[in-house]
């Protein structure tokens, strides 16, 4: 094992008494105090996250958009400058290599944000796939620290620290600006199901920015938040996590996310043939479907547990599960056979360490914020 990587905020996390955890080779804050309180803070007030483990890759050049159209399943050349898109990178066989957010920073400049665990894979694939284009792929993992301010109070807190036009900044948009005197790419994105912002800054600026946000957010009840609550927040919001709902063994169509694949974009793209077949297959014989499960009891369905029907036959598998702080009961996402995927399907249970515990099939997400 090599030494874990540490973010620019490492010393600050330790001073705050964070419980640290290894995440994709990074030493990251799991929680500072109670993860359930951190979760509730994001749902009702605001939370501040260090997400510097995410992998940034910059693609530039006259054919940057065309290169991404070829490398990814989305239509990135059509993305307006200042906007962002949720998309995926697939293997030639259609399997998902990673899910990504791509920001178009300028006519000829895109920022691709990959999961920490897949950043190297994505970087290598992009470099290879962009080779025939007039475009450059740059590893910018060391160039950025990433802070997220999430929750209903996030806009007010950030507005007190910047002159940027936050009201004009739509969901899935990003603009360069200055926050607390620090140059930042301000993006209205997140992974919590709440309104909020992600701030890409130079690592040297991360600590002063963290302190300024902490200070500005104090009256509104902002707290530092770790990866543990990030996971329960995204689970309640029905957002997939790579390695759980998304893997190289499933296509976007199997994950119920076929809408991210844009067949009508110009040129060929990696995985087109396999994904065309996957789309047809999903149409004719629906594959296992990603559903929500709500436990009737108090034991928690965890990733890897089997889902069964009334007769005890295996009909699926849990991909993520946790006690939901908002709902007050255990919840899970699971792939189940299409025949059992309808909300309200009777007899569905999860095998929790040898005992069949009844669960309710529900539509995702579990939680949707009021707008």
């Amino acid at each position, binding site marked *: 094992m090599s030494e874990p990587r540490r973010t620019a905020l490492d010393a600050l996390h330790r001073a705050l008494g964070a419980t640290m955890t290894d995440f994709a080779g990074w030493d990251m804050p799991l*929680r500072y105090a109670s993860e359930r309180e951190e979760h509730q803070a994001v749902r009702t007030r605001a939370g501040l996250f260090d997400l510097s483990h995410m992998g940034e890759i910059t693609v530039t050049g006259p054919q940057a958009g065309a290169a991404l159209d070829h490398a990814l399943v989305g239509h990135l050349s059509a993305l307006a400058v200042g906007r962002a898109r949720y998309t995926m990178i697939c293997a030639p066989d259609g399997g998902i290599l990673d899910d990504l957010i791509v920001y178009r920073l300028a006519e000829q400049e895109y920022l691709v944000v990959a999961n920490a665990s897949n950043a190297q894979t994505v970087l290598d694939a992009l470099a290879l796939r962009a080779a025939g284009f007039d475009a450059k792929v740059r590893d910018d993992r060391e160039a950025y620290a990433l802070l997220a301010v999430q929750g209903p109070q996030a806009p007010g807190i950030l507005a007190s620290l910047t002159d940027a036009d936050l009201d004009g900044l739509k969901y899935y948009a990003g603009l360069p600006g200055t926050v607390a005197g620090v140059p930042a790419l301000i993006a209205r994105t997140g992974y919590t199901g709440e309104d909020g912002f992600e701030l890409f800054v130079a690592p040297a600026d991360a600590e002063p920015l963290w302190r300024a946000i902490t200070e500005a957010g104090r009256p509104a009840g902002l707290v530092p938040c770790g990866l543990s609550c990030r996971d329960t927040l995204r689970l309640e919001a029905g957002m997939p996590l790579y390695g759980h709902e998304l893997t190289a063994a499933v296509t976007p169509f199997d994950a119920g996310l076929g809408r991210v694949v844009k067949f009508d974009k110009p040129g060929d793209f990696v995985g087109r043939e396999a994904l065309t077949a996957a789309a047809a297959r999903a149409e004719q014989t629906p594959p296992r479907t990603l559903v929500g499960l709500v436990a009737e009891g*108090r034991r*928690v369905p965890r990733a890897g547990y089997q889902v069964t029907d009334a007769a005890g036959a295996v009909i699926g598998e849990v991909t993520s599960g946790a006690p939901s702080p908002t709902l007050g009961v255990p919840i899970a996402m699971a792939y189940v056979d299409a025949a059992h995927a309808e909300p309200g399907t009777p007899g569905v249970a999860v095998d929790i360490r040898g005992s069949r515990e009844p669960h309710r099939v529900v539509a995702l997400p579990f939680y949707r914020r009021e707008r």
Partner: protein
Amino acid sequence: MSINPEQLRYSKEHEWVSAPADGVATVGITSHAADALGDVVFVQLPEVGATVTAGETCGELESTKSVSDLYSPVSGEVTETNQDVVDDPSLVNSAPFEGGWLFRVRVTDEAADLLSAAEYDVFIEG
């Protein structure tokens, strides 16, 4: 300074057990274990009247991230379980050595390798 009370003894599975009073000892998990688990949301305890065996599982603790087996540090019959902690599992986090106790046992035997507070300090440091 140790946060582990002097008068208790400890198992390597991070349970504590009190000195028996009239043959009955109280069992809980340590603050070290509670901190490692994170917020406990559900405890499944042995039934009153059940027999527990030192070193064997007798229940489970669900936290946000994981589920952990509960091991009994002593053998004997369960005389009482803590209904407060069943109703409010966060007591395990907020008061692991006090209001967050789990169950009481009429002790017939105990694990051979129970640790003193000082020994447990060293064990969790390591």
